[in-house]
């Protein structure tokens, strides 16, 4: 670097090169605020389903930090510097929120470790992973342990039996249930799952949605959690941590796709709002698809990416064999990101419009 020759290069270039000032924004602070934005959803989760989710989140956090530290050490990177960026923590939380909380402890541990070690660090660590690590973890779990992935806790008042916190802990860590209580009594299929199974039995949608597990918008309890995530998402928008493009395009496309099918055949296709407030749609719209590393950087690219994910989510939900489509939609769209980014480059200043001369577009 010939230009730098006259100055001694030190660790921080900022003392020697313009600009000498910077916004006090850090990756760590951004990630921390995303974690904070998850809190309303988590609080409602605890309110409706009991504290088991906190155990998953704790397990995921510890595993994430441990795996991250280990991988950084193996890759000979400054551990403390990278660990404090909070990105591993976020991956852990998102995975914990995507899988059933009442599951053997190793489920979330295996998923998180895989997400961090394989999906993140084997691809080069922070900033280099093409796939959303949390969603890779989820996909691995649902393919490898489908049984454990279907036992969702029933919300308060809906299960045949209910576990207190100690009971939940006992099941998570020891696999033991109180006498006379079966796993089926405290868990249930998700509202999306139930809808799918019942539709196969040729029941009309409106009749299915009369079941007690359904609430006003989506599933009883889970709709409130979705609402919590929506709230957190709006905070992210207001704090300008995410731009509007992905949430709007994602939810918009999901709404439109669901709306078209619903209008055409209301007996077989649930209404758009149901899709918004079921499963991981809200979590996906604001927290998963918006992961900057695995989404396009251009505004137009973000719209295409999110619209694609919205459509895929709907198709998987309506016609696929998996209960929810968010994870696979995300991963499928992750593959397209480099291409989308390349073809949605905005015109450069002085290279747009007829007023700016001959050189239109990019070379």
């Amino acid at each position, binding site marked *: 670097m010939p230009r730098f020759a006259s100055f001694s290069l030190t660790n*921080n270039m*900022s003392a020697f090169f313009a600009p000498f000032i*910077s916004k006090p*924004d850090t990756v760590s602070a951004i990630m921390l605020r995303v974690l904070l934005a998850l809190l309303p959803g988590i609080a409602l989760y605890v309110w409706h389903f009991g504290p088991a989710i906190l155990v998953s989140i704790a397990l995921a956090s510890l595993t994430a930090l441990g795996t991250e530290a280990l991988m950084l050490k193996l890759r000979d990177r400054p551990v403390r*510097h990278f660990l404090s960026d909070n990105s591993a923590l976020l991956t852990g939380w998102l995975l914990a929120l995507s899988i059933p909380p009442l599951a053997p402890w190793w489920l979330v541990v295996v998923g998180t470790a895989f997400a961090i070690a394989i999906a993140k660090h084997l691809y080069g660590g922070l*900033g280099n992973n093409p796939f959303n690590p949390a969603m890779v973890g989820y996909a691995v779990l649902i393919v490898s342990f489908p049984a454990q992935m279907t036992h969702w806790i029933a919300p308060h008042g809906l299960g045949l039996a209910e576990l207190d916190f100690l009971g939940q802990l006992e099941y998570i860590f020891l696999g033991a249930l109180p006498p006379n209580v079966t796993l089926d009594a405290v868990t249930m299929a998700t509202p999306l799952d139930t809808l799918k199974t019942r539709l196969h039995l040729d029941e009309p949608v409106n009749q299915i949605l009369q079941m007690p597990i359904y609430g006003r918008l989506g599933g009883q309890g889970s709709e409130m959690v979705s609402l919590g995530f929506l709230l957190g998402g709006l905070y992210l928008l207001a704090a300008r941590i995410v*731009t509007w493009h992905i949430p709007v395009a994602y939810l918009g496309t999901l709404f439109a796709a669901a709306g078209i099918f619903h209008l055409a055949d209301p007996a077989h296709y649930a209404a758009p709002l149901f899709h918004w407030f079921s499963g991981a749609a809200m979590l996906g719209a604001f927290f998963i698809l918006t992961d*900057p590393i695995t989404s396009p950087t251009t505004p137009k690219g973000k719209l295409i990416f999110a619209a694609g994910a919205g459509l895929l989510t709907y198709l998987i939900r309506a016609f696929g064999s998996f209960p929810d489509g968010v994870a696979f939609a995300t991963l499928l769209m992750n593959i397209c990101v480099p291409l989308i980014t390349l073809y949605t480059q905005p015109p*450069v200043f002085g290279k747009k419009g007829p007023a700016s001369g001959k*050189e239109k577009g990019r070379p």
Partner: protein
Amino acid sequence: MRTLFKFNGGIHPPGNKERSTQRGIARAPLPAKLVIPFRQHAGEAARPVVRVGDHVLKGQLIGMPDGYFSSAVHASTSGTIAAIAAQPIAHPSGLPDLCATLIPDGREEWIPHAAVDYRNSDPAELRQHLRMCGVVGLGGAVFPSDLKLRPLRGHPNKDIGTLILNGAECEPYITCDDMLMRERAAEIVQGAEMLRFMLEAGEVLIGIEDNKPQAVAAMRQAVADSGLPFEVVVVPTIYPGGSAKQLIRVLTGLEVPSGKLPTEIGVQCFNVATACSVYRALAHGEPLLSRIVTITGNVRRAQNYEVLLGTPVQELVALGEALPDTDRYIMGGPMMGLPLSSTAIPLVKASNCIIAASDKLFPPAPPALPCIRCSRCAQVCPADLQPMDLFWFSQSREFDKAQQFSLFDCIECGACSYVCPSHIPLVQYFQFAKSEIRAREQDQRAADHARERHEFREYRIEREKQEKAERLAAREQAAKQAQPPAASATPADDAQQKIQAAIARAREQAAASRPKNTDNLTAQQQAEIAEIEARRAKAHERAEPAGEVADNHSEGRSQ
């Protein structure tokens, strides 16, 4: 109310301009020694026309413009030339440059000078006058002003609909233009009228950011007093809104096409301080000998001073009374400024501000993290680039890719670095990539040059052989036939033609094989290239003509 336009991106860093605007502009005392670089402008350095030991008067020419793309340099005061030698100057390359050391005699004795009746003068004469007065853009790019007043081929001056005076001064801390507009508004307005006259421009817009209400008021008053139909336009404060292309966009809605000059869309833009020096040059015949410089930052007395060109930075630092924990100095603002390697470096035409800095004032950024592709950099880029991609290509040395993605449209404003949450020094990567690309092209050109010479040498050897053979044959023939060889002149002419043809061919080949990279550069970029090349050439003790850039001109930026 004029409709204003927007450019994408931009940032709002804290302005920190209040401190240095509390006091008026003061005149810096005459220093004991002036160090006057012969290159204070974009383009070729001026050629020294004085000798060591000469006594010079204030305003006397000491550096003659050397070639088309150059400007004059003068003695800032009367005194004796003590040395003409390479000295450290403020330049990113860190290389020293030729300077005259002037020991003032304290008499401030002027060379005779007189006003120019510009309304009854030929435009070409006026331009020559400005050139000999060393008038260059004072916004930062120091582009010779006479070149910007020259009609472009195919774009006569009467096509210039709008003359813009740039009083935006968007960079934090700097207040020299602000204070100049407050105190010398009338001179600026007169200078603007002179520029308008020379350009035959239609309207004149004076763009000032809304964080300078006093400057706006003073300029409005001056315009009203002058009775000229100029408009003072208040533009929103945003960095880098004072960059020429961005200001043109805000005021006119026009975008200067990439690699083109503002005149090609009928606009020309001058900094307010430049207008003021045009006024001094025409109304008083004074060459450019001083400028306003802000001293601010970690100092007890932040203020603006009128400083003689060539004054060492330390003189200004002493006036500002730098605080004890000051450990470095920056020439320019915190966004685009240059850290100084020493305070013995002279203040020049491009120096608008000196910031005394410490870790407390400018806390060092935390160590960089990898890019998380958050695209905050793209959101603030005024050139609508994708800095994270350019960073990627620069880091991996894929320079062709970087160029494809418009690296050379980057104005190095630093907005991307400013917002990057990973604290990646993005601009440094871009500067590095640009200099690598230029170096590569330079090497390519040198290689072409060498090949051309090689081909010529081979041809010469071949020709000599041939000539020898011909001479021999002629002699033999003469001996045989005892006749005067009448044909000997023709082969020589022939040979001459062949040489010309060979050179022409080699040139053509060289031109064809040269990568087209430099074709799309703006004049400022080309000026930079020319400058860097000139430096390289000097550093390598090689003298290569760098005249190709001379046809284009513009003032790239004027914050």
